[in-house]
C-alpha cells in the first residue's frame, strides 16, 4: 500500500510540476491543482497509513492520528479558495492582456507559428 500511495503522490507532483512550467495560464492552473492534490495526500500520509483504525480514542486498541486529517481539511479549504482566485485572475489576465501567456505577451516564436 505504501508503494502505491507514494508512487501516486510522486506521479501527481511530477505532472503538477511539468504543467506549472508550461507557458499558458490554463495548464499552470491545472498543474497547481494537481500539486495541491499531491500535497493533500502527502499530508494525510504523515500520520502513517493504517487500516481499520478510527481516529477516536477508547473504541479500539489502535487509533489513527487525527491531526493530519484536520491539517488536510484546512489545506483543502485554503487550496480551494486559492485555486478559485487564480482562475479568476487568469481570466482577467486573458481579458486585460489579450492572451493567456503567463508573461502577458506571446514570444516571437509563437507569433510566427500563429501566422504560418
Amino acid at each position: 500500500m505504501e508503494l502505491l500511495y507514494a508512487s501516486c503522490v510522486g506521479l501527481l507532483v511530477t505532472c503538477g510540476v511539468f504543467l506549472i512550467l508550461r507557458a499558458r495560464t490554463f495548464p499552470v492552473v491545472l498543474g497547481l491543482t494537481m500539486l495541491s492534490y499531491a500535497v493533500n495526500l502527502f499530508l494525510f500520509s504523515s500520520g502513517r497509513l493504517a487500516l481499520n483504525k478510527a481516529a477516536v480514542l477508547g473504541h479500539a486498541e489502535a487509533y489513527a492520528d487525527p491531526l493530519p486529517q484536520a491539517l488536510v481539511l484546512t489545506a483543502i479549504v485554503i487550496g480551494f479558495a486559492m485555486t478559485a482566485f487564480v482562475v479568476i485572475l487568469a481570466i482577467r489576465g486573458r481579458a486585460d492582456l489579450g492572451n493567456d501567456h503567463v508573461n502577458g505577451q506571446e514570444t516571437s516564436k509563437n507569433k510566427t507559428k500563429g501566422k504560418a
Partner: protein
Amino acid sequence: MIQHLTSLPILLPMLAGVILLMPPCGKNLKIRRVASVIFALATLLASVVLLCQVKNHGAQVYAIGDWSAPFGIVMVADPLSVLLTTLTAVLGVACSLYACAGDDEKGAFFHPLLHFLILGVNGAFLTGDMFNLFVFFEVLLIASYALLMHGGDKHNTRAALQYVILNLVGSAVFLIALGTLYGVLGTLNMADMAHKVTTLQGDDIYLAKIGGLLLLVVFALKGALLPLHLWLPNTYATALPVVAALFAIMTKVGVYSMMRVYTLVFGKNAGELSLMAQGWLWWLAIATIIVGAIGVLASQDLRKLTANLVIVSVGTLVALVAVQSVQASAAAIYYLVHSTLVSAALFLIADLIARQRGKVSDRITAGRAVAQPLLLGGGFILAAITVIGMPPLSGFVAKIWLLRATFETEYVMVFWPVYLLASLAVLMAVSKAGSTLFWHNTTAKPADAAEQNLVHPAQCCALFILVTASPMLIIFAGPLSDYALFTATELHNFAGNVSLVLEGGQ
C-alpha cells in the same frame, strides 16, 4: 482581560476588516476612512500595551481555547514578535492615513483588505505553531493578492498573476515541508519541535533535514532571497505605492520565520541538525546583497529603486540571521525596524513625486519640477540619508552595529567588503536619483494649479510618521538598542523558550 491581550493584535484587525465591510462603514466613504484609521490606531495601541507588558513581565503564552501546548495552538508574545506587531501597526496607521487621500477610491475594499493583511502579518508574528503560521501566511497572501490588484492596470495583472502562481507553489512546498516534519517529529508546535529535534535518530535526521530545508525554500520565497527574489521588483513597482509601502513588512515576515525556525528549531541546540541551514543562508544572503545592489544601480525609476533597496535589506538581514550570535541578531532587529520604515517612506515619497511630475512620473530623467520642492525634497533627503546609512540618522547606527556584530566572526572577510560596496552603490544610485528628480528640470512651464496635485494633509501626515521614525530611532537609540539586545537574548535563550511554551500557558 489582561491575559487575552496577546490575542488582541490579531482580533482587532479581524474585527476591523469585518466591520468595515458592513454598513454604515461599507457605504459611506468618509465614515469608512475615519473608522479604518481609528481601528489602525486601536491595533497600534493594543500592540504597544502588549509590548510594555512583555517588556515588564516577560514573554506571554496564550493557549487558544485553553488547550495547552503542544496539543493546542498557542500564541507566543515574546519580545521579538511584539516588536514586529508594533512595527506592523505603525505601518498600518501610516498606510491607512495615506490611502484616505484618494487611493482608496481606485478600487473596492481597500480599507478592509488592509486590516486583513495586518491580521495575517500579526498572526504570523505571534503564533507559536507551524501549521498556524501557514494559515496566517495564506491570510496575508490572499489579502495581498487583492491589494496588489487594487486600482490596477494591465501591467498589474501580469505581475499579480506571476506573484499569485509563485506563492501558490510556495504554499504547496510549505505544506510538504510541514508534512515531512510532522511525520518525523509528531508535533507542529515550534517549541515542542525544537525539543523533539534533539532526540532524533537514524534516518529520521535526514527526513527532518529535508523538511527544514524545504522550509528554507518557502521563507526565501516570501522574503525574496536569491534566487527566489525575481518576483519582488516587478510586484512592488506595479502595485499602488501605498500598497507597496504596506508590503514592506511582508518580506520581513519571511525573515522573521527564518529567525524563528533556524534559531529555535534548527539552532545551536538541535543536536545533529544544529545550524544546518547556516551555510545556505549565508551565501544566499551575500549573493542577494550583490544582486540587489546591482538592481539598485540599474533602476530606471524611483519605485523600482526602492524595491531593489528592499532586496538589499533582506540580504543584509538574512546574513545577520546566518551569523547566529546575540549581537548579530540584536543588530538585525534594529536594522529590520529601520529598513521597514524607511522603505515604506520611500515608496510614498516616490508616489508623491510621481504625481507632481506629470508624464515623466517617477522615472529618473529630467522632467517637470515638482510643485512642492521643499516638502518633498526634505522628505526625500531625510529618507535618503537614512537608507544610505549616513550620520546622523538611524541607518548609520544600524550600519555601525551590524558591522560591529560581524567584526569578530569569521564572516568579516566576506561580509564587510560586500556590504560596504553595496552601501556605496546605494549611495550613488540614491543621490543620482535625488539630484535628477529635483534639480534636472526641463524648461517646460510649471503645471497649472489643477495639475499640481499638491500633497494632501493626510498624505503629509502619513509621510511625517514614517520619515520622523528615523530621527526617533536615533533619539531613543539607547532604550531601543537595549530592547533589541534583550529581544536577541530571549531569541537565543533556547531552554527558556521551550520551557515557557511547554509548561506555561494560561
